[in-house]
Structures are given as C-alpha cells and as structure tokens.
C-alpha cells in the first residue's frame, strides 16, 4: 500500500512538472512581447498560410504589412490624442484557416500582446470568432472582408468596423440593374451554401421578385462541390438568358472549366471571383473561357486615384509590386485599405480608449476617400460606401481586359467604359 502511494506521488510530481513546464512554455512569448506602450501603436492580426483560406488570406496580409511599412517609412502614424506620430508594430499569428485556433489566437492578441486594435483574418468564417471577442471585450476590430450578415444585424455596435466589402446582400444590386437594362427575364442562379454566396443569391431573388420575376433555376450546392457536370446540364435545360454562379474561387474555377470542357455556351455568365483574382483565373481557366463573362469590378480593375488618405490606385500598384503591377490583386488592396482605416481612426481619435479611437472613424465617416472609394459605415459598423460596379471580360490580345459596364452608384457612371455585349459571342 505504501509503495503504491509513494509511486503515485512520484508520478504526480512528474505530471505536475510536465504541466507546469507546458504552461510556462506556452506563456513565454506572451510575456516577452507584452505591452503596447513605449511609443508604438500595436496592431494585432491573424493570417492563414495553410488550409482552405490561405489563397485569400495571404495576399490580404501582405497588403496590411505593406501599409505598416509605408506609415513607418513616413515617420509613423499621427495619433491625435498624443498629438504626435507613433511607429506602428504589427503582431501576427498563423491560424491555419482553423476558426477554433483563431479564437485562442485573437484572445492571445488582446490579453497577452495587449494590442491597441486588431484586424480579422480573411472571410466570414475566420472573422466570426473575432467579432465575438470584440463585442465581449469591447475592443475595436477592423474586419476586412468578413461581410457576414449576422455580424451586423444585431443593432448598433461600435466595436466592429467592416473596412472593405459591403455586406454580401448589397453586392448584387448593380447586377440586377444590368439584367433589367438588358431585358433579361430568365435568370438561373446557382450558389454555394455559405453566408457570402447565399446572401447574394437571396438578394438577387428578392430584387427580381420586386419586378415580378422568378429565377428559372435556383439551387444551392455545398461549398466543397467540385463536380459540376450534371448541374450545368440541368441549368442548360432551363434555357436561361443569364446564369449567375456565386461560389468561392475554387467553385468558380470548377464551374467555368465545366462550361469550357463541354463547349456549353450561355449568353450571360456572372461569377464573383475572376475580378478579385485575375492571375489565378487566367492560369486555371484561361482567357478564352473567361471572355465575355461578367464579374464584380474591384480595385485594381476599378482605378480610383482621387484619394484623401494613403496612396491612389496607380501609386499603390507601382509601390506595392514595382515592375509586377499585373500581379496585384484585390485582396492586397483590401489589406492596405484596412490599414488606412486604422490610420484615419487614430488621426481623428478623441482619446486612446477603444471608443475614443472609434470616434475618430465616426468623425470622417463618409468623407474618407481611399483607393477603394468612399469609406462609409452604418451604425452596426457595416461598410455601405464601397459599392462595386459590374464589369465584363473582353478579349484583348492574348488575354482579356475588364470593361466596366454597369455602375453601382451614380458617381460611378463616369467610370463606365463599355456597353455590355449581350448575347455573348460564341468563341
């Protein structure tokens, strides 16, 4: 009996030592980098270098890093309550596209690294845990692309700021305008079952029903869908005048390739991502299969050079990737734009408290002109300014060019540089 007890204690001692060392080890980096004082403003963020969101997360992160480099090179960012410029320090962790890991890492940024403000990782799935933490701990979150409807539907909320994209439900408004200007009545809608795509599909369905129209095809597929063979055939069977496919990049690629490999021709095809990731689509789908297709026009297709903060688009392209301007995509711009929002908030902040920093954004709401357009937030923190026009991909040389064919706001009418070619010519 005594021996058993002795052995137990020995074992427990070892367990205790292991646990303690485990925790001590885990606590180390937090202790080492704690504190936001000492003349720097710390901005925390997460990125994903593996997993399903890496494709989008990494370029966005690169854009934010570029912003930090820019402000620091200019001697820092002006912080109104301190009446001086401060250097910006970016603290970032890798969540590997896993929302559960992201939860603990966002919390790490706030509790251990004590960052002044934090920036969410790409997309609604990885932003969701940050939204919770921002609300619970009353800490200001800059949400770049997490446009999930539920984040902004529970009333006024000063702690979440959507910097880049309008909420998903607002996106497709110009698409409906274009469809009705082309007198298209038979619309087929295929969407992926996630917040981003479903909200767009539902919004279009709503707009159409106001005009007394009903989609001839309206179906959701899992976001993991990769085989579109029979789906395309089913859509073809409904004889649509326009086909709208709302997916993530991999869905758009698989869908467009299916059309190509079966020589299926529709007169009007809209997919959301060729505008955001031109290089990837050029590689994976090819210019020929993209010709005459439609997509949302985002920067850098949308060239906004009249700005009152940060760089205009052309300057951004030249400085971000000198000599390789064509490799710059929307997510690079979005990451940089989030930095500009942070910069504006601090430049007009009334105090260093979280609400004081947020008040800085309220002061410039609707007046800020960035390379993404007019920065305007509603009371829930959703972006309502940076609306996206529709563009058509038009053959040009060996590749294609994006022509803006339908504006989202009256101000964008000046940007329209082509009329939509409908029906799309056969290859």
């Amino acid at each position: 009996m005594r021996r058993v007890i002795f052995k137990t204690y020995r074992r427990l001692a070892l367990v205790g030592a292991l646990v303690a060392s485990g925790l001590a080890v885990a606590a180390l980096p937090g202790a080492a980098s704690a504190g936001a004082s000492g003349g720097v403003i710390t901005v925390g963020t997460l990125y994903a270098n593996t997993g399903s969101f890496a494709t989008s997360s990494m370029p966005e992160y690169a854009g934010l890093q570029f912003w930090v480099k820019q402000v620091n090179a200019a001697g820092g960012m002006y912080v109104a309550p301190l009446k001086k410029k401060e250097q910006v320090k970016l603290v970032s962790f890798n969540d590997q596209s896993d929302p559960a890991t992201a939860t603990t890492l966002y919390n790490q940024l706030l509790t251990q690294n004590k960052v002044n403000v934090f920036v969410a990782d790409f997309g609604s799935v990885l932003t969701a845990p940050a939204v919770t933490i921002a609300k619970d701990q009353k800490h200001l979150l800059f949400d770049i692309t997490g446009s999930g409807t539920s984040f902004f539907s529970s009333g006024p909320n000063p702690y979440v700021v959507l910097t880049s994209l309008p909420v998903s439900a607002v996106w497709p408004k110009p698409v409906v305008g274009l469809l009705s200007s082309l007198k298209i009545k038979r619309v087929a809608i295929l969407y992926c079952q996630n917040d981003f795509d479903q909200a767009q599909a539902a919004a279009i369905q709503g707009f159409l029903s106001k005009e007394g129209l009903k989609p001839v095809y309206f179906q959701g597929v899992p976001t993991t869908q990769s085989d579109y063979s029979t789906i395309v055939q089913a859509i073809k069977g409904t004889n649509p005048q326009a086909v709208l496919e709302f997916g993530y990049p991999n869905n758009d690629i698989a869908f467009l390739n299916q059309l190509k490999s079966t020589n299926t021709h529709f007169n009007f095809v809209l997919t959301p991502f060729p505008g955001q990731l031109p290089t990837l689509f050029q590689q994976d789908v090819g210019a020929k299969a993209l010709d005459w297709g439609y997509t949302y026009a985002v920067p850098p297709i949308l060239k906004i050079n009249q700005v009152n903060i940060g760089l205009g688009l052309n300057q951004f392209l030249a400085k971000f990737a000198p000599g390789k301007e064509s490799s710059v995509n929307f997510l690079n711009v979005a990451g940089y734009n989030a930095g500009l929002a942070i910069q504006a908030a601090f430049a007009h902040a009334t105090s260093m408290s979280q609400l004081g920093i947020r008040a800085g954004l309220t002061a410039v709401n609707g007046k800020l002109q960035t390379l993404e357009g007019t920065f305007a937030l509603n009371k829930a923190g959703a972006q309502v300014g940076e609306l996206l026009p529709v563009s058509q991909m038009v053959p040009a040389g060996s590749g294609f060019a994006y022509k803006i064919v339908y504006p989202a706001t009256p101000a964008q009418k000046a940007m329209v540089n082509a009329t939509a070619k409908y029906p799309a010519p056969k290859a």
Partner: protein
Amino acid sequence: MRLFEYALISGVLYGLFYGFIGVGLNLLFGVMRLVNLAHGDLVVWGGYLAYSLTTSAHVNPLWAIPISIPLALVAGFLLYVLTVPRLRRSPDTETSSLILFFGVSQVLEALATMKYGTNQVTLPELGNPVTIFGQQYAASLVASAALAVPALALFYLYLYRTRLGLATRAVMANEEEATASGVRIRLVATSAFMIGLAFAAAAGPLATFMLGGINPTTGGGLTITAFTIIIIGSLGNPAGTAAGGVLYGLASSLTQAYATAWTGMVPYALLLVVVLVRPSGLFGRRVRVA
C-alpha cells in the same frame, strides 16, 4: 428526360473513374487492414506530378501516369519499411494505422503546400468534347473512364491470374489460414502496399480533371469517397470496386440533377446505409464484423 439520360451516362463515366480511385485503397485495406487516410493525398500528389510535367515540359498530362508508377513503387517500399512492421506489432493495428496515416496525410499536405502553394491548380483539357447520344461530355471525363477500365482489368488479372495475387486473396480472406498454408505474408503485404500506392498515384492526373482542379486540401474528401466505394463494393473484389464506383457516380450525378443541395451528403449517406444493411458490401462474401 434528356437530363436523366445525361445524369446516367455521366454518372457511369464518373463512377468508373471513382472505381479507379478505390483500387489502391482496396489492396491496402483488404490485405493488411491498414486504414490509409493518406490515400487521397497520394492521388493528389499524382495530380501535382502531371501539373509539373505540363507546366515545365508542356507534354500531355497523361504522361504522368507511366512516370508516376515507378516513383510510387519506390515511395511505397520506403513507407512500408519505415512504418508497417512497427504498426503490425501494435495490439490494434487498424486503429494505430488510422492515426499514423492521418499524420502522413498532414505531412503530404504540408509538403504540397510548400512546393505548389495553396492555389487551385488545373490541367489543360485533353481535347474537344465527346458527343454521346447527341449530348456533350468533357474529353477528360471520357478518357478517365476509358483508362479506368484497363486499370480495373489489370487489378483483376493481378488478383486472379498471378501466384502473388492468389496469395493476396488468401490473405484477404483469412490471414492466419494463409500463413498456416505457407503463404509468404511479408512478400504479399509489401507488394500489395507498393502496388496500392502506384494505383493511387496513377489516378492522380485523372482526379485533377474530374475534381475541377486540385489543391493541398483536396485529398481528405477523396479518401472518404474511396473508402465509401471499396466498402460498398466489398474488399478484394475488383468487379465490386468498379460497381461500387459506378453506384457512387450515379448517386452523385442524380442528386446533382434532382436534389442539388444534398450532393455533399451522398458518400456519407451511402456508406452508412451499406455498412448498416450489409457490412460485407454489396458484392462480398464475408468480412470480419463485430
């Protein structure tokens, strides 16, 4: 009606390809009860080989098939020697192998990310669409089905017309009896492992077409699909694997046509129904259950 016809034909064509995906796994799981969760990742690596060939040497991606086979045989031998003898000593080989190969799959995914990045990668289409009964099917789909048939036939010849295949089937049916009657288990196991991996890698280029491109995370879903197919079609039965694939392909294309929202659930629902109703699979004689 036209849609139904299309769903049937494309279901069969896809199904033959899925049968091809199942073959390699069938050998590993059937012979040694190794739950190879890295199967899909091996297929994806076969696809990446084809991608490298087309982008660097600008040759037809199907050349990757003959090139991948010897590479996979060597890789299979190494992986076998490094892991399987130790695994077989574990009191619960099946469970241990499942966790081990999950680790291997993570490693393969990580290596793919390092080499090829996280973007979706596609292969250039093989040619103009093929017309069957007046409807158009992708050339790659028809080619995949056409290549799956000889692959399944080879699998059949190996199991039923070679001495090693005979021994393999004996081990699948009952390892102890086979050992007692003088079958050289280690030889059977090694060759099953190597050949299984070769089949997986050879299916890779086709998978890249059939899945609309590949990325490092594609393998996971493919593994589950492959398990579904071999369990439906029964272990050690090439015709069963082909039939399991076709059944899966049909179920998948018919849900695409008539219950689009539920396509993701097809493999899981099929697997559950089959293991509960007939755990030995639809074409098997017997299998060890509880």
